């Protein structure tokens, strides 16, 4: 019998390398989202590429602030927690041989992590003891109630088709046809969910410009930087999870699997961020009904179609 502790230690170098690569991937994806966002807003490509570094420098130079009777603990947890959630999501994605955090329940874990964002954004709005922040935090929960069920049913569709909740198995099951192609509604609902937990695009009302950036209203300096980075990273992480779920994982000609995964994630992040930059922010109380009464039944119907096709064995 081997010593489990020694066993864990033997895996340390591989784990360390994997962790560094995952962190690097999150940063690259977040930056891609930022660049694409800039292009969508009408900036030139070089200016968009320089935007993130310049803003990082600006915000790192800026002082920190806290507000009267703020709940600083909860406020900071909310802000600094977003980026780690994105990193954990990326760690679930099978790249090449295996994921950094492999497991038979990858799909459910992805779901659990996106729910953690509920808590974080609300805390971010709550902690500052500010009207704008409160409005933003509460708007987020309202939207979350709307986008979460469609997102969950969208996550279930590939799992039905692959008869597994393991992201690696789901990816491998798409050798003939990507799930995005034959379950488009689930794919769209998933992407809406990604926009939701990245708080951007049509679902950006919680940080809406018309309430002084809502949940972000009282943030400055590094505290704001990590939240902005976290939102871009969450968009990138959401796109990366879509790769094994809907875009065939690492399958592709010529290049190694790992490269395909990263490439697909980058492309989807760019496309998603561009769309988020172009679509108008919709008002929360206008979004609830369509999310519940149009998107939700459609996704359930999509699941039905998938289940019937799977059972009938086609």
């Amino acid at each position, binding site marked *: 019998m081997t010593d*489990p*502790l020694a066993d*864990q230690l033997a895996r340390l170098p591989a784990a360390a390398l994997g962790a560094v690569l995952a962190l690097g991937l999150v940063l690259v994806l977040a930056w891609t989202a930022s660049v694409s966002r800039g292009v969508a807003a009408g900036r030139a490509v070089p200016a968009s590429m320089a935007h993130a570094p310049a803003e990082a420098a600006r915000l790192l130079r800026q002082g920190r602030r806290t507000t009267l*009777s703020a*709940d600083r*603990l*909860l406020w900071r947890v909310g802000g600094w927690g977003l980026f780690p959630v994105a990193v954990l999501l990326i760690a679930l994605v099978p790249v090449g041989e295996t994921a950094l955090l492999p*497991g*038979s*329940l990858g799909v*459910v*874990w992805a*779901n*659990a992590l996106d*729910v*953690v964002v*509920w*808590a974080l954004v*609300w*805390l971010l709005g*709550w902690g500052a*003891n500010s009207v704008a922040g409160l409005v933003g935090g*509460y708007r987020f*929960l309202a939207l*979350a*109630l709307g986008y*979460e069920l469609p997102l969950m049913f969208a996550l279930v569709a590939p799992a039905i088709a692959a008869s597994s*909740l393991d992201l690696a198995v789901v990816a491998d099951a798409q050798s003939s046809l990507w799930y995005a192609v034959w379950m488009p509604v689930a794919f769209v609902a998933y992407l809406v969910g990604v926009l939701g937990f990245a708080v951007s695009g049509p679902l950006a009302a919680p940080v809406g410009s018309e309430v002084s950036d809502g949940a972000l209203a009282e943030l400055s300096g590094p505290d704001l930087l990590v939240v902005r980075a976290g939102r871009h990273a969450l968009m990138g992480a959401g796109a990366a999870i879509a790769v094994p779920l809907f875009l065939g994982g690492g399958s592709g000609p010529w290049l190694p699997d790992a490269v395909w995964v990263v490439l697909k994630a980058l492309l989807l992040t760019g496309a998603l961020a561009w769309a988020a930059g172009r679509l108008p922010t919709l008002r929360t*109380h206008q979004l609830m009904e369509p999310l519940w009464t149009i998107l939700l039944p459609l996704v359930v119907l999509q699941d039905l179609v998938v289940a019937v096709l799977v059972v009938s064995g086609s």
Partner: protein
Amino acid sequence: MTDSSLVVDLAFWGCAVVAVVFGALVFVVDSMARATYALAVSFVATGGALLLMQQSYLGVIVVLMMVMEMAVMAVYMVMFMGMNPALMPMSMVHSHRTALGASLVTFVVLGSGAVLVPWPERRGAPSPDVTEALGRAIMESHMLVMMAVGPVMVATIVVGVALSTARTRYDRLGDDLDQTPTDPPLRGETQRGGRRRDR
């Protein structure tokens, strides 16, 4: 337990201590938000403990559901506790003596049960995929549970909505339910509410 390694033991006890400490914090902190999220952390740690007991699906579902429920519960706690939810000293304990007695008795009964009952040795091995086993159980042997849950949930929705909305479609639209909703939907109502304060 098949592999009772030191690492797993340590992690388990870590989770257990976090769960208990944060559970206790619920009654110590002075803010509804802190109390609710302390409870959420406690539940997440419980989920971690379940994972270490190789109940992977149960573990992840505890994390998923409890974070979600706590996020919504925080909103209710803030709304319905009859005092400022963050800036006043508060107590989450009611009728101290009874509560303390009841919890102590429960703890002793359950705790002694866990320690004193001669647990049977495990016969056979757990299913290689507990999630799949659970799925089969729900759809085959425990179908009745599933059948019963549906109507119960519908009843919950209907009762919940009926109790929580003070104004239903008749208040919004009058008798003519087919007319287009106004923008904003409840305008007249709000203004009446506003005037009521002026009284």
